[in-house]
């Protein structure tokens, strides 16, 4: 065998979005939601997308999830094109999407049932995940009995259960009050560190994006396009104190100005 055959073309690892365009038809007219978005997420990275509402950031996430087809451009993970939704790309939505007739444990088990994991293994995996999200005591509760923050923790555990290559979070804390939101940010940061997951996180909250993301894509609206990419200068282990760091505040102002000018 020769050496050339031994080394096939190695596809780049991680999520790659190149020249993504998404058009919608609204009453015969075509509206461009995304206009040539380039983006990448390396394995193990936490990437945040921030933008005003209506900038197409949710659309971008849905295209990656396989829930919508791109009009043009390429989206692939580890070199594979995305044809439809699958358990390799777990997603958490802003609205509460837990199955209300299933207990917390049964909700987390849903994805594992889909992959026909044996019952014993499934039980262990559910227990492990409920431990990670700190809801072991609520395994037998119904979603209606939980607070908004707890429900989103379950949703995150459910999405993590099938060990996805990437976790897509679409404003998961958008419906929560400010205090809960802050504690959920802490929580998500801890979960990311513990599970070493790859996360693509969409938000309209600049602080949230900067606090959680290692890299932040700032999206401009109408049509949605990448305005700037910011490499956040804080390490993976960071506490809430970071939010008072002068560099954090500078970046915050910078993004705010960008979003204001982009919309004006």
């Amino acid at each position, binding site marked *: 065998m020769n050496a050339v055959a031994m080394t096939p073309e190695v596809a780049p690892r991680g999520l790659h979005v190149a020249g993504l365009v998404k058009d919608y038809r609204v009453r015969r007219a075509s509206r461009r939601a995304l206009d040539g978005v380039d983006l990448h997420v390396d394995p193990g990275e936490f990437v945040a997308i921030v933008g005003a509402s209506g900038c197409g950031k949710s659309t971008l996430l849905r295209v990656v*999830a*396989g*829930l919508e087809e791109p009009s043009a451009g390429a989206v692939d993970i580890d070199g594979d094109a995305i044809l*439809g*939704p*699958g*358990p390799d*790309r*777990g*997603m958490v*939505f802003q*609205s509460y*999407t837990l*199955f*209300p*007739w299933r207990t917390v444990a049964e909700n987390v088990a*849903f*994805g594992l049932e*889909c*992959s026909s994991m044996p019952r014993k293994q499934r039980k262990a995996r559910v227990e492990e995940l409920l431990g990670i999200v700190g809801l072991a005591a609520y395994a037998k509760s*119904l*979603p*209606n009995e939980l607070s908004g923050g707890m429900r989103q923790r379950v*949703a995150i555990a*459910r*999405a993590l*259960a*099938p060990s996805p290559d990437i976790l*897509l979070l679409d404003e998961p804390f958008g419906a929560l009050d400010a205090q809960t939101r802050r504690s959920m940010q802490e929580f998500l940061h801890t979960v990311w560190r513990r599970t070493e997951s790859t996360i693509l996180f969409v938000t309209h909250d600049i602080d949230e994006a900067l606090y959680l993301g290692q890299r932040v894509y700032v999206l401009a609206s109408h049509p949605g396009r990448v305005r700037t990419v910011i490499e956040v200068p804080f390490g993976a282990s960071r506490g809430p104190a970071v939010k008072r760091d002068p560099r954090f505040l500078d970046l915050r102002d910078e993004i705010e100005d960008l979003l204001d000018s982009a919309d004006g």
Partner: protein
Amino acid sequence: MTTTAADPVADAGATRIGDPARRTRRPRRGRGRKQHALFRLRGDIPLSLRIALGVLGVAAVFALWWVAATAWSGGSFLVPTPTETWDAGVELYRSGTLWTDFEASAERILWGYAISMGVGVVVGVGIGSFRSFEAASEASIGFLRYIPATALTPLFLIWLGIDEAPKIALIVVGTVFFNILMTADVVRSVPLDMINSAYTLGAGRLRVLRKVVLPHSWPGIVDVARINLAAAWLMLVVAELSAGAQEGLGFRLARAQRFYQVDTMFAILIVFGVIGVSTDLGLRWLRNVTAKWARP
């Protein structure tokens, strides 16, 4: 004593706003309009009052009935009193016809409504889930449901004879379109992101239907069955009156009319009401037991 003496001093600053000397002297006029507890739009009332009003409502109906029976018809047979009706009902029960009539009618309802719900759920889930299914059937169902089901009676008599078949067919035709359209509505109310969540967890379409759409729709479907059951009884009576029945509650009603037994007719009407209320409560119970999560 020192503690009480200190109090007025401590309070002096705090009570200044409420100081009587500072109060304006104009006559006290209220702001807004006080509403009586009984007549607040959608306002809640105490449980005891609710029960009392409920009992009062039923009593009022009985009182009206009694007045009508004694005063208006002057004691004639046209409007029987509640006691006469009760006696007629007991007589029906003793003679055994009440049971055989109930059985005959219930069997028709059971068959007809089972078929109607079966078709309603299958087609309704199809229409509610798939736009293609909806587009293909929308026009036909929209047209068919406006044909009065009772108008099909003569046709069914020619096609199906005068046996059980035309009666069951009438019940099916009279309820199936309601069941289809209302089931489709229930299915459409499954949140799209809940379905999308299932997809991103690795579920295929069939699994999403079985494990997400159906469980989410179940309590709504039971409600659809409960609400449209009234229409099934309506169609049953029409069928028994016009499609040549030999037994059944509707048939018994027509027969009592032929002999001017108004008290028997009243008794049968009340039997219809009792059956209706019982099945309604039964189906409510079923929904609450099988879908605890959806309890109001």
